[in-house]
């Protein structure tokens, strides 16, 4: 079965003067899927999102949203997209409910419809008690939930979530994940950027890993981990450890990565790692299955990207 993509990008590029923030990326996003964009700060995720929701014109390449060109039909496209931007840009001069009323009007939603929908969504996000609060009285988590409510006012077909959970406590994070799963079931196509690998592997059907404006890998998160990293990792610190890591790699034919004084030994089977631990008397309890974070860090490096 061939599905037509809801969003299709081909050679999508964005330049700021001479700096290339997004460098010729290709991707297709299908109906009702959750598509993740992973990448260190500055990878070009937000810039890509902004091109999709028509805030920033592309420099070159093709981009089609529901068959439309963002340059030519921004009104039609934006009326079907909901955006949770990276930085909350809630209106500080208005209360929670007023924010939502004003925003509904931007979409041309009739009064009768938005009144009901606002109540519904506030309840959905457990914000109904904060209806008349001012924005600055809200906690970080509440602001984020309100941004999500705002993004849902127009019943979007595509929901763009730019780091929806960054900086939130685990409770709020789990609440938001739960809501996103519900939304996904209702058929909304979601684009999600995040720094939380757990979030990406739990919610995303497919994702891309971006770095310096390019896509390094794309696919299903679980398959990617399986295909691109050995199944198991042992972690240990060098302090007081006599082992020369290069020697280990040679002797046991395993993959080794070192960051500072932390060493990661990758192997496809757990017994191999146990063997290494016994043989070398390395003092560690951490032998675990490898995950998306290992893959991410291997691809994008463990150094800072700022």
């Amino acid at each position: 079965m061939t599905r037509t993509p809801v969003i299709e990008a081909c050679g999508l590029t964005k330049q700021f003067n001479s700096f290339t923030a997004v460098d010729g990326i290709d991707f297709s996003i299908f109906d009702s899927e959750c598509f993740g964009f992973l990448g260190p700060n500055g990878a070009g995720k937000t810039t890509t999102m902004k091109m999709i929701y028509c805030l920033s014109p592309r420099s070159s390449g093709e981009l089609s949203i529901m068959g439309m060109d963002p340059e030519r039909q921004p009104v039609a496209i934006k009326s079907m997209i909901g955006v949770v931007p990276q930085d909350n840009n809630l209106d500080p001069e208005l209360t929670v409910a007023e924010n939502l009323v004003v925003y509904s009007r931007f979409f041309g939603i009739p009064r009768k419809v938005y009144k009901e929908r606002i109540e519904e969504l506030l309840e959905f996000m457990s914000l109904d008690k904060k209806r008349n609060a001012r924005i600055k009285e809200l906690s970080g988590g509440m602001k984020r939930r309100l941004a999500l409510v705002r993004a849902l006012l127009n019943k979007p077909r595509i929901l763009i979530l730019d780091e929806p959970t960054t900086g939130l406590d685990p409770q709020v994070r789990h609440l938001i994940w739960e809501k996103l799963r519900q939304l996904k079931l209702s058929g909304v196509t979601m684009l999600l950027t995040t720094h939380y690998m757990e979030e990406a592997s739990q919610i995303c059907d497919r994702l891309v890993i971006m770095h310096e404006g390019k896509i390094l890998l794309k696919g299903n998160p679980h398959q990617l981990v399986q295909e691109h990293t050995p199944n198991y990792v042992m972690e240990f610190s060098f302090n007081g450890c006599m082992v020369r890591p290069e020697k280990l790699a040679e002797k046991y034919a395993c993959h080794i990565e070192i960051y500072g004084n932390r060493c990661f030994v990758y192997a496809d089977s757990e017994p191999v790692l146990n063997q290494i631990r016994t043989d070398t008397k390395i003092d560690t309890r951490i032998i675990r299955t490898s995950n998306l974070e290992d893959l991410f860090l291997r691809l994008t490096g463990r150094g800072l990207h700022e």
Partner: protein
Amino acid sequence: MKTALPGCAWRIFSVFLRHKKCYTKHLFANGFPPFIEPLLFLAAIGFGLGKYVDTINGVPYSQYIAPGLLASTAMYTSTFELTYAAYIRMEFEKIYDAILSTPIGIKDAFLGEILWAGAKGFFFSSAVLIVITLFGLVKSPFGLLAPFVGFLTGVSFGSMALVVTSYVKDINNFNFYITGCCTPMFFLSGIIIPLDQLPEGLRVLSFFIPLTHCVNLMRELILGSFHMSGIIDLVWLMLFIPVAVSCAIYRIRKRLIV
């Protein structure tokens, strides 16, 4: 669900409504100053200074300056609205990022801003009109049309302010525009000094100041003394406004869309 796309007029108006909502939330605090300022001005300049000035073109001095106050108040309110306030919305509150993520485009958003600046010009000049009416300084029923000139004043100066805002990188830079441009315009527009008392060079310059034409129109309506030159003032503004509005939209698009 497929809903009809919001039309252009509605998109502009919805931005206007956002500003109206913010403003009317604090109606008392926001609505007070436009009534107080002309009172102070009339008391200090009109009745104070008026003691030393005889009449100008046959009208008492307080009567002479009163109409101009409708224009200057419209100039200042629309200027502040689209310099400091717009800059805060743009750079600190990031309101436009939110607005532009909806079906609202740059043109809609900033036509809405300019419309709002015009509306503030209208309301502020209405407030002054009420005050000077109480002082018996309105001589003609055509004075009721003066707030519409206030609207044109607001649109003109709102657009100019937006052009300035599109260049500004630091909010303090607006001081240069206010003291360097608006204040001289105030003095050269014939509000307190009759244009024919100005040196030749300044008189020519005053023709190119939009405020001059707003003041002329205000004075004609409020004093009920119409001249042919009123047509020139109106035509001048009608030519200036589309140019100013287009420049404002062009500049702000350049600033915001990268």
